[in-house]
């Protein structure tokens, strides 16, 4: 492959990775920070806002979503050449729905109490726009392994946001952390629940929907502030050597 070709591929790497050279580091970086679904793409906001009343709830739903995303990306990528463009959305949705049904039924079988808490939001992963967005934007154009990694890292990035938001809301709202962890690891895990603020009145607003909006807005603001600070520092670094040479 010529150098010019590689440059073009590098430029278009975010949208399309048709070239055999795949940047795994970029996929991880995009999922966790640069293109984070919860904080930058703002996709999948319904579970982000609704299910983050506690750290355990938020993180569990996030992990389920990540598993679905990795599996759906991995299943769509090998058949991407044979799916006609005109009907690709229904085909993708059917694949995602089948995978979500598997997750839903397995959770019902093995994590019954957590399944009861998360409830309707597990089947609703099908309609979560981040899943279809990654299938459409990445898996439909890339080989299997990078697609699966992209799906999982995007889902994991979302899980971290859900966990952070859930943790913040739980501490401010109830003064505890990891409440409900016994739903995942069994009743013996109850001792892992931390009481951060003893004798706490409980700040209900953080648990109620406004708390989700205010909390998510604060997280987005913090991320933007960090990104801006980094950009400003990089700009200063790139100017400094030029000044030195002149």
């Amino acid at each position, binding site marked *: 492959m010529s150098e010019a070709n590689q440059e073009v591929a590098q430029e278009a790497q975010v949208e399309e990775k048709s070239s055999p050279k795949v940047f795994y580091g970029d996929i991880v970086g995009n999922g966790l920070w640069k293109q984070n679904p919860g904080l930058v793409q703002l996709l999948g906001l319904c579970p982000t806002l609704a299910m983050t009343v506690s750290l355990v709830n938020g993180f569990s739903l996030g992990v389920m979503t990540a598993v679905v995303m990795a599996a759906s990306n991995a299943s769509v990528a090998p058949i991407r050449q044979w799916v006609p463009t005109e009907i690709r959305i229904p085909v993708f949705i059917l694949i995602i729905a089948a995978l979500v049904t598997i997750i839903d039924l397995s959770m019902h079988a093995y994590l019954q109490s957590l399944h009861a808490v998360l409830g309707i939001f597990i089947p609703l992963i099908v309609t979560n726009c981040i899943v279809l967005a990654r299938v459409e934007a990445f898996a439909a154009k890339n080989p299997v392994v990078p697609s699966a990694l992209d799906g999982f890292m995007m889902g994991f990035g979302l899980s971290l946001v859900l966990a952070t938001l859930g943790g913040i809301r739980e501490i401010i709202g109830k003064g505890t952390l990891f409440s409900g962890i016994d739903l995942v690891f069994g009743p013996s895990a109850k001792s892992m629940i931390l009481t951060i603020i003893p004798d706490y009145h409980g700040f*209900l607003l953080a648990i109620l929907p406004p708390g989700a909006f205010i909390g998510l807005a604060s997280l987005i603001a913090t991320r933007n502030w960090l990104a801006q600070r980094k950009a400003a520092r990089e700009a200063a670094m790139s100017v400094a050597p030029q000044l030195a040479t002149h």
Partner: protein
Amino acid sequence: MSRSPYLTSAPSVSVIMIKVLLALLPAVAAYVWVFGPSILVMLILASITALSAEALMLKLRNRPIKPFLMDGSALLTAWLLALSLPPLAPWWLVVVGTFFAIVIAKQLYGGLGYNPFNPAMVGYAVLLISFPVIMTHWPAPIELAQAKLSFANQLEYIFGASNSMNLDAVSMATPLDYLKTQLTLHHSVQDIVSAAQFGLLGAKGGELIVGAYLIGGLYLLQQRLITWHLPIAFLAVLALMAGAFYLADPTRFANPLFHLFTGASMLGAFFIITDPVSGPTTPKGKLVFAAGIAVLTYLIRVYGGYPDGVAFSVLLMNMCVPLIDAWTQPRVFGHQK
């Protein structure tokens, strides 16, 4: 006789705010008379929190601190919020409410002049939703209280570690609250209002404070800091609404005077809904806005889950202000409709 030209400059923001604070002083005095001096502590707490939060946010936003801090708008928000809280509320309640009002409801939207919602009412709604038990426990007025609290006792309530336990001993259901709970037990209004906490028009003791708000409001009208549209439309529609229901069934609905002289009606009419930032600007729009608040307040009081509804009504109507303003633009002279 003064000479021409008869030009006057519009009063500055700080002059307006100081006059509004002045108009609140009779009510503060009435508060001290009815509930004891604890309200002064709460006013000081709220003022300190509001000024520190305002200064902090102005610094974070790279705005000049001194001119915005001296305009008194943060102080007014703090006072209005403190006057809406139960006078023996714990100190952190005042601090959290004021902080929320200034930081989130005012400064994050862009500071004075840009906030779409009334900051004091946002703070109040946040506290009412988050801490319903403390927010609905009002102390009994001194003349009705079984145990007379000294100022030191009151300070213990405000700064004590966990006072929600023993608040029951000194608190008493407010008339609006009592009326609501007794009506669900199928007592008639006539029987209910013979209870000790009911006074001549509204709440025993409370009606003094309401009267003081009325005096302060009339001072604001006389100083032309507010126009008649908002308070008159609010009180008239509230009275009409209550009157219609009262005439239909006097055993189930309290009389209109009771609704005017209890709860936050007077405070709302003259000091809350007249906020020039979050309210409409056209005269016709002000009438619509105030009428909407009155209707919602009455509905929440009678059919809603909370004893009083002024705060929620104000916030709901704040949301409608852009629409109201757009629909009630006065016709420009010489233009056809």
